[in-house]
């Protein structure tokens, strides 16, 4: 009897799950397998693929291949784009931490009934369009933008500083759009923080810096790790921000991938690059899960 109702419950459960799972398998997870297959095929002349096995795409990800036609061999460029993606993502994460940590601390130390409002102020920009926020940054830093106009108006400079279409612009933009992702988990970890611990530390003549480093930081560390991953991962795969603020001059991985499906007409290479990006992200996520797991263990 119990057995029968168990099977029934199981059947009901999977029936209820089926629409969500079908949609996700069809339009999110399943197609990823096709990307893997495509990375082992030969590019078609006008985009698409020829169904012939080849590992060229995977070699082209990093290794330069000397064709007779020089314009086709830019693997050096690939490595520099990989490096730029990692470098700018790390910088974005660092700056977001430097600004996000004090902000989360600030919100967590407000009176209880005010915290939600401050958090809402952090979340509103996050839920608004990423393209629009990138565009807002673009308007400010362009040559005719507010920053340059102001500096020229004040007589500090007489030529506009070229900020748009630089690595600085991309980092600034990614920092701007992903900052809430840093604040959110740090705040969540800090909200439950017991400030009597800090009081105890001060009673033992600890300095403010020492309290911050030795008492507060270790306890909110899981939040910091989570925030860093949440900023690093989308930065690494960013497409819109480097496209708009890098202006096609400072490519990141996302733009390199897009290029293979557009002008590059090399779908297998684009597929191999996508899988590479996915692999890097997975490594970052595994590091995070490990770190979070260890934290949980050490704190009981």
């Amino acid at each position, binding site marked *: 009897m119990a057995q029968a109702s168990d099977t029934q419950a*199981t059947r009901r*459960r999977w029936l209820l*799950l089926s629409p*969500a*799972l079908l*949609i*996700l398998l*069809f*339009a*999110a997870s399943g*197609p*990823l397998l*096709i*990307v893997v297959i*495509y990375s082992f095929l030969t590019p078609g002349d006008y985009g698409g693929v020829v169904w012939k096995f080849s590992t060229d795409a995977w070699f082209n990800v990093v290794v330069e291949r000397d064709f007779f036609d020089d314009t086709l061999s830019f693997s050096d460029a690939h490595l520099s784009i990989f490096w730029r993606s990692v470098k700018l993502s790390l910088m974005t994460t660092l700056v977001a931490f430097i*600004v996000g940590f*004090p*902000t989360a*601390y*600030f*919100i967590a*130390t407000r009176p209880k009934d005010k915290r*939600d409002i401050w958090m*809402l*102020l952090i979340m*509103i*920009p996050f*839920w*608004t*369009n*990423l*393209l*629009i*926020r990138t*565009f*807002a940054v673009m*308007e*400010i830093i362009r040559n005719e*933008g507010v920053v340059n*106009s102001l500096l020229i108006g004040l007589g500090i400079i007489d030529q506009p500083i070229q900020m748009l279409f630089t690595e600085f612009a991309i980092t600034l933009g990614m920092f*701007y759009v992903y900052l809430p992702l840093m604040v959110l988990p740090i705040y969540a970890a800090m909200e439950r923080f017991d*400030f009597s611990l*800090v009081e105890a530390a*001060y009673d033992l003549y600890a300095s*403010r810096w020492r309290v*911050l480093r030795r008492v507060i930081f270790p306890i909110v560390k899981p939040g910091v790790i989570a925030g860093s991953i949440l900023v690093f991962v989308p930065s*690494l*795969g960013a*497409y*819109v921000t480097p496209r708009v603020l890098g202006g096609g001059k400072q490519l990141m*991985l*996302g733009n390199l*991938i*897009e290029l293979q*499906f557009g002008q590059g007409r090399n779908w297998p290479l*684009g*597929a191999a690059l*996508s899988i590479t990006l*996915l692999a890097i*992200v997975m490594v970052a996520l595994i590091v995070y899960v490990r770190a979070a797991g260890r934290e949980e263990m050490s704190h009981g």
Partner: protein
Amino acid sequence: MAKSRAFDVRRQTGFVPLALLCFAVLYLPIILLVVYSFNAGQSIAIWEGFSWQWYVKAWQNEKVQDATILSLIIAASASVIATSAAVMAALATTRTRGFRGYTFVFALINQPLMIPEIVTAVALLIFFAMIKVATGYTGLMYLIIAHSAFCIPFAYMPIRARLQGMDLNLEQAGADLYGTPWRVFRRVTLPQLWPGVLAGSMLAFVISLDDVVITEFVKSAGQDTLPTYMLGQMRRVVTPEVNAISTALLAISVALVIAFYLLSKSGTQTNRE
């Protein structure tokens, strides 16, 4: 009290100015964007007086009209589909002891949050290109399904949270009174769940409305949504018309987010009573 004012244990040097700077940085670009959408001149840096002209221009622009309608159709459809699927999935995964395959289900539902959007976009481009060749169909369904998929985790989260906080006894009572499962769901579960459903569908709507990357890769010719239309415009000389469109879109998002906030807040309050 006097002591705490003299030595506040919560104070950290420089944190308050940094935090306030953070809020300024978050809002200043958006505020400037909105302000210059009302500029009478062509510039986005020199103020030449107030005018509605860019809103009028945007409103009369046929491409903007088409893109707006398409954006709303896709967002509404994706929101309804994702929310329905998420309600069912949440019913199946909450209030139960762990079951075989739970980790798989959880990973699958949250997958759109973890995998870089560009990778999903490329995967869909390839997959849908195959289907387009095979069937010849190039309609809106591709965009709607793709949007539904990445909206599911956003709809799922608030619904699941609401379900977990709900009282099982009422449903048990309903079943004891010989209510059919469907009747119990409609009369007992759904009314209690409603704030979560509403919140989830609003999040899904906003997420769909804002999407650029997946739409850019999946759309067929002539299927520009508002964000992909704007992305195309940004290559050219930008006039405050783009500011005007952005401001309108921002207004919708902010209104929905604040509604979501109030809704989830009232939800937790009734739970406490």
